[in-house]
């Protein structure tokens, strides 16, 4: 740099005005390119990666889903929408859809209520605030495998801690893994364990942006803590709530590791498919190397997520309307 700078300085002054015009034009062009073009260049890496690992697989999966496509055969017969037709008549697919929705609701609804309440408790001057916040996030940084392995033991039928505690109250041993409702409850608890703290922190961040004066005024008016939470905090952080609902819902649609490990690698999610989620159903079909069918399921799952996101979006628009 130091050696080049004098060159430039020396080069510019002696240049006569006439001869300089193509040079300045070029410089203008470079300047305009820089201003107009470089932002795109800066974001390009993301979009290149997105195309390679997001868009292309999406399109390719759609293409595969229109074929009779197994991994071990080089012949891929085009079958049109046959895979989708089979899929819509497949009881196991609808069973997996039901399980996904059930586990999603079981895990998301209590989790968000709990997260708002926890955030409310933390949203006040506390000693050692950082310790509380870090503690909340700890379950989230734990490996999902570790969480599920430990919880599977807690939910064990014969020697599980939870059944042991229940036995104090005279309850018989619950076979958590066997029942539909019980297995959904167990899996939901694992998901809540991992994600409640994370969502609490997001809520807490939003709550701290709510003006203090509102609470002070409410306190003077004699509103209780719970009334303040209901009447001030929740309306003020509504956009954040909607955001968390959307991300949690999408996350819940994609649950795979919990049911897979809870069933100790049972690809069917229990012998009666009682906790096989959509993602696990896809995985089952991929491991059968039936790529055409598995791709069709993937696309149906994608469609479901788009529908859910669209509903969420409409709700967001409505709440925005009501706020302004």
């Amino acid at each position, binding site marked *: 740099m130091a050696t080049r700078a004098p060159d430039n300085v020396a080069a510019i002054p002696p240049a006569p005005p006439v001869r300089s015009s193509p040079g300045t034009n070029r410089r203008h062009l470079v300047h305009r390119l820089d201003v107009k073009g470089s932002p795109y260049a800066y974001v390009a890496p993301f979009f290149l990666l997105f195309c390679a690992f997001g868009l292309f697989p999406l399109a390719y999966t759609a293409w595969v889903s229109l074929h009779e496509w197994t991994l071990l055969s080089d012949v891929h017969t085009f079958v049109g929408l046959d895979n989708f037709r089979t899929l819509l008549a497949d009881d196991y697919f609808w069973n997996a859809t039901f399980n996904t929705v059930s586990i999603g609701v079981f895990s998301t609804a209590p989790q968000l209520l709990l997260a708002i309440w926890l955030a409310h408790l933390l949203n006040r001057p506390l000693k050692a605030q950082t310790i509380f916040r870090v503690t909340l996030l700890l379950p989230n940084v734990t490996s999902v495998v570790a969480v599920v392995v430990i919880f599977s033991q807690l939910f064990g039928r*014969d020697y599980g801690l939870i059944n042991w505690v229940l036995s104090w109250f005279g309850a018989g041993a619950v076979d958590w893994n066997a029942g539909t409702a019980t297995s959904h409850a167990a899996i939901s608890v694992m998901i809540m364990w991992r994600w409640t703290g994370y969502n609490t922190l997001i809520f807490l961040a939003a709550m701290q942006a709510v003006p203090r004066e509102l609470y002070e005024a409410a306190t003077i008016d004699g509103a209780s803590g719970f009334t303040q939470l209901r009447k001030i905090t929740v309306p003020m952080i509504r956009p954040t709530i909607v955001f968390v609902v959307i991300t949690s819902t999408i996350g819940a649609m994609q649950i795979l590791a919990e049911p897979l490990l809870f069933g*100790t690698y049972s690809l069917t999610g229990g012998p009666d498919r009682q906790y096989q989620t959509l993602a696990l159903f896809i995985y089952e079909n991929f491991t059968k190397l039936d790529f055409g069918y598995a791709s069709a399921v993937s696309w149906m799952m994608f469609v479901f997520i788009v529908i859910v996101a669209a509903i969420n979006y409409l709700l967001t628009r409505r709440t925005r309307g009501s706020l302004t």
Partner: protein
Amino acid sequence: MGKLRAGVVTPLLAVAVLAASVAACGGGGSDATNAGASSGAAQPAEKIKLTVALFSDFHFAPIYEEFKKTHPNVEIVERRAQFNDHHKNLTTQLATGAGAADVEAVEAGYIAQFTPLADKFYDLNEYGLTKRQGDYLDWKWKQGLSPDGSKLLGLGTDVGGLAMCYRTDLFKKAGLPTDRAEVSQLWPTWEQYMEAGKKFVAAKVDGAKWFDGPGENFRAMVDQAPVGFYDQQNNLVAGTNPDVKKAFDLNAAMVQADESAKLAAFSPPWNTGLTKGSFATIICPAWKLGSIKDAAPTTSGKWDVAAVPGGGGGNQGGTHLMAPKQGKHPKEAAELIDLLTSKDNQLKLFTEAGALPSIPALYDDPTITGFKNPFFSDAPTGKIFTDAAKALKPQYVGPKAGDVLTTFGNALQRIEQGKQSPDEAWAQALKDLERIK
């Protein structure tokens, strides 16, 4: 000017570097392959890394050390995955052309799925392993051949002759005989095994049940039949084979007689159940003695081994070692397979890990026939399993036998969990079989 240019250059550079690195990832693989293949032959002293992929602890570690003595330039890395995952991974790796190890273990339930892919594996004949044919049990040798018999794709490690392990302490409390000869007399047939189970359950011993779960017993019964899930032409006959139906019905009846501890084999609760004595008997292919010892080391001396119901026969499990063509060092891989399956080492693996050799000459070796297993109350497991191996009638194992077994296992579990009657479970199993292509 310099500053200005940097504004454009940096992101462009970033893109270029990114593209280059992606390209390098794609191209690097083939370069490395070529380099490995050519230089491997030219310079024998070159450092070589061999990976061995297994689905449990085969107790191979001392043999690796032995191999390194003759091949000081070879480093051996073993990786293990869960049983089903291991075989699914191998399928994917072969299909996508990347990721397979130099030496892959393939279990008997899956071997027929891989031998038709003869072009994906090295022909071990080319590396001189044909010489081993005389060592082997004829059927075990044939399992490792390509369908036309021209290529040698895998060499056998062990076979899984059957026996029945039982807990002497629980038997004693239930008033059943504990001597292994008398116990064997209890159950010449599976029906008698079930009757003995009823007596045991009626005695109500510490909440223990008769066996761990119906899946493995079902598998043993099917393995003892002349034809299993497939016929010789690879047609799936599981739904129409009367032996399969008989095994299913008998296991369903045992479940309904409350004889099952409802534990899925090799799950964590099963491990706990082994340690705590949740069940009195467990079907024992030779290799399972090692699993029990590993999973429940504190139960030493509480076990004994008796003859299997249904009159011997039956092979459950057993493994082949194969060398996928993705490996860059076929010569070393073949030599390693040769050593891992050698007569001496099969002998050692029997005494250390309970793996029953697939070399019949060893069945009369006094080290094996005289071997008593201290963990299992000094049961003469050497004699029990070599007798079983001599009586063993091999059964043809079809390509998707593993998936078929899972289907029936799930059906039996549905009965166990009270979700379906045996008839409903059977009907659904037949429907599920149609999905196995």
